[in-house]
Structure formats: structure tokens, C-alpha cells
């Protein structure tokens, strides 16, 4: 049976891992290759490398960071941030990535998902969806979410569940779903959002935004239907280890890859 995955996320700016995704008060958390190697050793099932500067001037730095990370962490590597064309995706794959994640670029140009899936296979194409809960109308009405881009700074007309379904039709082989309401709040994942999407698509859903502790990971899978769970600062800051998160998941009866590692 396929294991449910635990994925540390590296938010990278100018070649360094930084804290958070709010774009303010960035603090240096270390070297991406070093952190990735540590996480792989500790049992990370995959590494997500998000270049949050995503500026074209920084392309070389970004690719070099991907290359160094892929050379030290022998687990699957997903890279996102500023990839806008099939050719740019090829460069990132050649640097050692296994998958590329598209966010703003996919909203602006949905055919990009199709072009990249045709060229590299849908297993290499991840659509990242940043969703924000809409104010509910009449009491008892179902919750709804809108897609936001540019790190949450820009609204779109897209409804998140509909966009998720469309992204899969266009070629995305996986969805990285971030709750912008929960991101950075350590108040738990938005399991309603996750369930709303995972129940409508057949591709794996990665839960993101709001992790505070091992129980949240269990809830994202059990209640949200997520196949994988992503977190950043709780791992960077060593508030929780990947092993402790996996132990909680295993105890809840979820299939996880447990590695026995010599604690150092």
C-alpha cells in the first residue's frame, strides 16, 4: 500500500531557506541542500523547494540551489517558483527536480499545465492552489474558497474546487493545496477545504498551511483525505520531528514509511 507522505517545505529566497511565506520579516533558516539532506536522513518522503523570489534575474541561483539539493537528498524533489514555460521546466528537471509546481503561472496560462504534462508526463506536474475562504452567506450554506495568487496578495475570480478539477483535466498529476487563512498561523490544516477538493479529484492532494503538531497531520489525511502533508517552520525550528509526526500517523493506523535512524 502506498505510504502517506510527510514533506518538509523549503521556502528559498536568494539561495537561502527563509521562514514563512508572508514575505515580511524573513529570517534565515539555513542552506537548502543542508536542510534537505538532514530531512531526508530523518525520514522526509519528499522535499518541496519553493523559490519565493521567483525573479528571472535569480534563475541561475535558483537552479544551482536545486542542483545542490538534488545532489545531497536522495528523495523526490519538487520545485516551484517562477517556472512559466516548458523550456524552464526542462531546465529545472535537468537540475535534478522530479516534479515542478505551478501556481500563479498556471492561473495566468492554464495551457501551461497541458504543455508540460504532454512533454514530461502528468506525474511531474504539480498545480499549487492557494485558497482563501469566502465569507459564508446564509446560515448553513456550504463553505467556499477563492483562489489567490502572488503569495496571497492578488484575488482571482476562480473558485478553488472548480479550479482544482480543471487543473487535473488540464494535466496536473498532483495538487498542493494551501489554506491562506491558516498559513503561518499554526492553527491546523483547513480539513474542509482539503476534503472539498480531495473528494472531487483522483490525483494525490498535498495538504499545506497551518501545521502545528502531529495531530494536524493525522487530521489532514483522515478528515481531509490528503495523501501527503507539508509543513515548514515546525520542522525548521525543530518544534516537531518528522519521526514524531510519522509515529503519530502510524499510531492512527495510517500507512507511513518509518525509518530507523541512528539519532545523532
Amino acid at each position, binding site marked *: 500500500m502506498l505510504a502517506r507522505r510527510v514533506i518538509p517545505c523549503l521556502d528559498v529566497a536568494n539561495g537561502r531557506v527563509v521562514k514563512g511565506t508572508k514575505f515580511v520579516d524573513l529570517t534565515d533558516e539555513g542552506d537548502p541542500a543542508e536542510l534537505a539532506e538532514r530531512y531526508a536522513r530523518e525520514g522526509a518522503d519528499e522535499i518541496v523547494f519553493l523559490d519565493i523570489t521567483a525573479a528571472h534575474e535569480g534563475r541561475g541561483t535558483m537552479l544551482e540551489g536545486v*542542483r545542490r539539493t538534488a*545532489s545531497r537528498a536522495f528523495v523526490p524533489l519538487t520545485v516551484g517558483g517562477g517556472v512559466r514555460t516548458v523550456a524552464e521546466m526542462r531546465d529545472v528537471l535537468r537540475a*535534478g527536480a522530479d516534479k515542478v509546481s505551478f501556481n500563479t503561472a498556471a492561473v495566468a496560462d492554464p495551457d501551461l499545465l497541458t504543455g508540460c504534462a504532454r512533454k514530461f508526463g502528468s506525474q511531474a506536474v504539480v498545480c499549487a492552489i492557494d485558497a482563501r475562504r469566502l465569507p459564508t452567506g446564509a446560515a448553513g450554506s456550504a463553505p467556499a474558497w477563492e483562489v489567490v495568487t502572488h503569495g496571497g496578495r492578488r484575488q482571482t475570480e476562480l473558485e478553488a474546487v472548480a479550479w482544482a478539477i480543471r487543473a487535473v483535466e488540464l494535466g496536473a498529476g498532483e495538487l498542493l493545496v494551501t489554506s491562506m487563512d491558516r498559513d503561518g498561523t499554526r492553527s491546523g490544516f483547513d480539513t474542509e477545504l482539503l476534503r472539498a477538493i480531495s473528494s472531487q479529484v483522483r490525483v494525490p492532494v498535498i495538504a499545506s498551511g497551518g501545521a502545528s503538531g502531529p495531530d494536524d497531520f493525522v487530521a489532514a489525511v483522515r478528515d481531509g483525505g490528503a495523501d501527503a502533508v507539508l509543513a515548514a517552520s515546525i520542522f525548521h525550528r525543530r518544534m516537531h520531528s518528522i519521526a514524531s509526526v510519522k509515529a503519530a500517523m502510524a499510531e492512527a493506523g495510517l500507512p507511513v514509511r518509518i525509518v530507523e535512524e541512528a539519532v545523532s
Partner: protein
Amino acid sequence: MSGSGGSGGSSGARVRVAVLDYGAANMVSISQSLVAAGANAVVAAEPSDLAGADALVVPGVGAAAPAMVHLREQGLLEPLRDWVRAGRPCLGICLGFQLFFDASDEGDAGDAPTLGLLAGRTVALQDAPTLPHIGWNSVEAVRPHPLFAGIPDGSYFYFVHSFAPVPADEGVVVARTTHGRPFVSAVASGSLYGLQFHPEKSADAGQRLLRNFLGLAAGDRPAPGDRPAAEVA
């Protein structure tokens, strides 16, 4: 055939592994993981690149039919067959493994002839709950094999595929994995080894397996121990 005496390294020369490059996007991970496992890895894009290699790795990319075209156009088809027929160490990974068999259903016409080094054909996974089969899944031993020495039975390895070969000779099967129905995830026949999963993406279990392969390729020399990740290209 260890190196000359003298003051050099006493642990024996690194196994020289040629990694066949026939259009794969991702040669970085396989080469670097082999280096980390103790090999001296070189990328082989033409027949002359095989000279001096102790072992050959055939990685996987895309579908069977275009892969065969690439191998033929680069003049690698016959050298690869000759290598295996000579009984020299060869490891196929994912599509590289599938190519060892007679034919694959993964072609435009649903029938792509492949290398014919092992009897059997590659077919789509049966009753799979999701396709492609992507992620960490457990590999269950059918028989003990030195390729898996030191790796607990049922360990997780990383898979990305929709097809898997069905060997005609059950005797070559080393391990199976279940996704829907069980399929063959590792084979060994003499010095020819095939893996449906990606050891280069399978963390410590994958690194151990690659070290075991290098040990087998080096003959009776014990598998090299942990080595530094060495130079980054």
C-alpha cells in the same frame, strides 16, 4: 584487479559505473546517488563511453518505443546487448528495467519490441487504484538476494510508473510489490539486475541497494561503506 600497491587508497578502486544517457532529463540524481554510494560514475552517451567501465546502469525515462529509438540512433543498442550477453554487471531502473524484456505494451500501436535479454513482456498495472503508481510502496522479497542485503523485507522504495514487466521465467523474480494486484518489482538473472522502483530516490534503503550492486559488480569485494557525497558538478 585492485590498483597497484604503493601509498594510494587501500580500500580498492571505486567501481566505475557508466550511466547510459539516452535522453533522460534527470541524470543528476542517478549519477550523484551512485557517487554517494561509492562509485565513480560517468555519463555514457555513445558506445566509446562504455570503455573502461566495470558496470552499466540503464536508467528510465518516458515510454518504451521512443527509448528504443534513442538507443538505436545513438548506436547504443548493440553495445548494450553485447554487454549483458557477456555477463557483465548491469542494472536497469524503471523503464531501463522494462527494456530488458521482449516487448512492451507501452507503444503507440500497443506493441513495442524491446531488448529481448529476458523472456517476458511489459504490461499495464492490473486493477491499480491509481495510475500512474507514484510514491513509496513496500517491496516484498520472493527470495533472498545479495542486492537486498541489509535491507529489511518490506522496506519502502519510491515508484513512478504505470507499466511493469511479467517475466516468463518465475526464477528471475526477486521481489514483488502490490498496487491493485502484485507486480514484479525486482529481478536478477546472473549479473543482470532490474528494479521497477528508483533506488536513487529511495533514501537510505536505495543507497544501501546501490552499494550492494556496486559490491556485486566488484566481484567478491565487500560493498564499500559510507563515503562522502564527493564532488558536486
